[in-house]
């Protein structure tokens, strides 16, 4: 049994957190510019000493869908690119998760969620596994903390990383 180090914080990465890296670099490539590691990916790597990262099949599906549909990748390329990102950031993929549909139902009945519900699915998985949910979704950040308090933005993540580094 692999024990998660107690002193590390366990973070669930929302799809929008990783997606920006591919979007930026695909645009850079089209313009003939040099590829760049986003600040976010660099921060995640800097945080490896303090955090364990997790994703779910739902994140993998969302990222691979966009790699194929938006970036014109073939199945094996999308698979490889996903695997190399996961390896580089030492991300663990939760295999056997379930989705608490009643939790999502309570949210949409209580607050006005205007966007699609895929990020609420991620939130449900993070909540069930007691993971800190790192997301760039402004609706989740502003409206869902009353349903699950452990939600942070990238800005919060950087602040947390900075605080841990100074200790």
């Amino acid at each position, binding site marked *: *049994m*692999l*024990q*998660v180090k107690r002193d590390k914080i*366990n973070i669930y990465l929302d799809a929008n957190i990783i997606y920006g*890296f*591919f979007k930026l*670099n*695909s645009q850079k*490539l*089209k313009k003939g510019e040099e*590829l760049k*590691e986003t600040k976010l990916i660099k921060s995640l*790597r800097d945080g490896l000493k303090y955090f364990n990262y*997790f994703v779910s099949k739902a994140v993998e599906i969302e990222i691979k869908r966009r790699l194929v549909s938006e*970036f*014109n*990748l*073939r199945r094996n*390329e999308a698979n*490889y*690119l996903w*695997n*190399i*990102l*996961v*390896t*580089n950031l*030492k*991300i*663990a*993929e*939760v*295999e*056997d*998760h379930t989705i608490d549909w009643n939790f999502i139902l309570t949210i949409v009945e209580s607050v006005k969620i205007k966007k699609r519900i895929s990020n609420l699915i991620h939130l449900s998985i993070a909540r069930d*596994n*007691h*993971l800190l949910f790192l997301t760039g979704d402004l609706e989740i950040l502003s409206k869902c903390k009353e349903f699950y308090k452990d939600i942070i933005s990238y800005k919060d993540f950087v602040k947390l990383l900075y605080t841990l580094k100074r200790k």
Partner: protein
Amino acid sequence: MGKIKLKFGKKKMKLGEREILVRVPLSKVSNEEFMKEVERILRKSLERAQQV
């Protein structure tokens, strides 16, 4: 340049009281290798898109 070989394994992890099954990477990939591979794959897809 060929692909970097990546290996994965499945492990049980204990998160608080909960035990979950996760897929974890067993290989190591440096940042340079990672960026090179991202460029290689995205470049291929861009070339393919331009050919169509």
